[in-house]
């Protein structure tokens, strides 16, 4: 990770172990993943055991310990979307991207994940790409939508 991005974050929270989640959130947001060397530095800067940092980093789905693709593709896995056919939608996404949920394709284009319910249940089932909602999706529309994301 670029030191110019990392150092200000570490300096701001130096010596404050209680700020671990805030720090990891910021790094994930800036860098899109949490490299191990960065996590070692976080442990040192905040004064918290490295095992605690790893525990928190592996506990939450938001954090990725491996690099992500250019586009983050989520198929909402909430109960309402599930009732409206999210399983079939995910199958279509896996076919179109060539990877399974939790994986990134070999060209670093798409990272596919089952997404947490964002409360837009009324317009499900949903495909959310880079934070943008594609509502009332059908499996047939998946390829056209993903084509918008090179």
């Amino acid at each position, binding site marked *: 990770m670029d030191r110019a991005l990392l150092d200000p974050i570490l300096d701001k929270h130096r010596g404050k172990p209680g700020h671990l989640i805030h720090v990891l959130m910021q790094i994930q947001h800036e860098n899109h993943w949490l490299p191990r060397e960065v996590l070692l530095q976080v442990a040192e800067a905040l004064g918290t055991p490295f095992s605690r940092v790893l525990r928190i980093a592996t506990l939450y789905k*938001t954090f990725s310990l491996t690099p992500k693709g250019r586009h983050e593709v989520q198929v909402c896995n909430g109960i309402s979307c599930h009732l409206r056919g999210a399983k079939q939608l995910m199958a279509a996404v896996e076919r179109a991207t060539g990877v399974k949920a939790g994986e990134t394709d070999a060209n670093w284009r798409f990272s596919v994940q089952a997404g947490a319910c*964002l*409360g837009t249940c009324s317009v499900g089932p949903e495909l959310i790409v880079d934070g943008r909602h594609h509502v009332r999706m059908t499996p047939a529309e998946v390829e056209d939508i993903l084509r918008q994301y090179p």
Partner: protein
Amino acid sequence: MTPLRSAAELEQFRAAIVSSREPPKPCIAVCAGAACHGMDSQRVADALEAEVARLGPAAGIELRVTGCHGYCAKGPNVVVNPTEVCYFEVRPEDASAIVASARDGTVVERLVYADPETGEKARHLSEVPFYKHQTRLLLGDNTRIDPMRIDDYLAVGGYAALSKALFEMTPEQVVDEIKRAHLRGRGGGGFPAGQKWETAKNAPGDERYVIVNAHEGEPGAFMDRAIFTGNPHKVLEGLIIGAYAIGSHQGYIYTRHDSPQLIKRIEHALAQAEAHGLLGQDILGSGFDFNVELHFDVGIFVSGESSALMRSIEGLPPEPRPKYIRTSVAGIRDKPSNLNNVETWANVAQIIERGADWYAGIGTEGSKGTKLVSLSGHVVNSGVVEVPMGTPLRRIVEDIGGGTAQGKPIKAVHFGGPMGGSIPARLIDARLDFDELAKLGAPIGAGGLLVMDEDTDMVEVARYFLEWLTQESCGKCVPCREGMWQTVRVLDNITKGKGRQGDIERLQDLNEVTSAACLCALGKTAADPLKSMLRYFRPEVEAQIARGEDRDDAAAGSTAR
């Protein structure tokens, strides 16, 4: 902005805002709630803004981007105030027609509600069936308020309750009022809020905390986000009143990291409240200090559990503590901590302003006030609904919800998400009441109501909830981690046609131990959806075990057989 330092200054400030808005100009309110926002309501707002600017200030039209109106299925939503004309499924191309009609006092007929069968139109909010059957005490202001403008909240009477509490009531009187109103927690526990406040207030300690649980992790529940994003000050006002009552000077708001809109609204509301002297040092010149910190969950359901939430605020992994260490006595850093849900806090201001007797007059014997319900699943009119406690579910599902798509018969309704249960359609006259629904095995929980049509595979729904929970629990205790996982294995086999003799007994044993032995509420209630399936849909479960069909039907559109 000089902070307001007395009740009189607040009222003068409010009066100035109100009089500057007389006579009321036509105001176009565009919904920027989660679903409408997801349907690009921003482009609608931009188009309307451009059109209003084109006409110029002389035309006297205002535009307001608001929070969730509630009728999510029909978004993007637009309401023209003060006449409350409602437009649905609005596109950017409709901007000039809407602005022109707002100026001329006419109605754009093609955009109003039309009954799907008779074609009869309903132009005003009070006539639209979805809204007509509701009692929108909490949500009603959402169509009038821009959550980024505190003036809008003040214009509708905001912070008058805080002023009354600080200057006309003692902290004990405030607690008493909440107790007499019988306000019960809206996050899922249904615990009497006043009692919790009193425990936190009287527990030994030099510091105590108040917390807003804005986590809303239950899938299918989106009403907390609707009220918090749409009217953050209403929640904040309740929190400050509660802090005053309990004697807390430090508050925490705990929410999700993945709703950027919500986070922005909260941060802005906190900053504006402080700038106006309604938060921070010497609130309204009363001498009462209170500050609020914002904390985030980064993606695990269990951190919505109150003791796990507090660990998370401390920077620790979100592992719950057993309930016999009550968090109202020993919570964050072992200090008395009063945690309440967003909707619970949102109720506080109106109770203080209009009185406990008024509030207790709404609802049933055991459940007072109104409840926000997020209606989804196979229902036609999916959205956020507010009705008095005691409302029969039939009214919510049919009169407001419009039944199911394609008119298919309803099979069941589910309350409480992964910690709740389903009841069959024949019980749909049951009333929205904490205790009545809990007895039926479908506790209200946060208020997410899922409608399921006749093609729904109930075993699959139970399996879904349990599998979801196996990924969202912390994994500390054996009966939750292992019990749920083993239950999923059995249900998996059943849905794949590999059910075997003794499965029902295996499930019942697992359910019994999970409910009795788990450390926290997540585990203890994890078995409830399955229990409700065994209670009301047992023949279906047994048939699946016996039949041994393959359930993986990728061709069908839903969880159909």
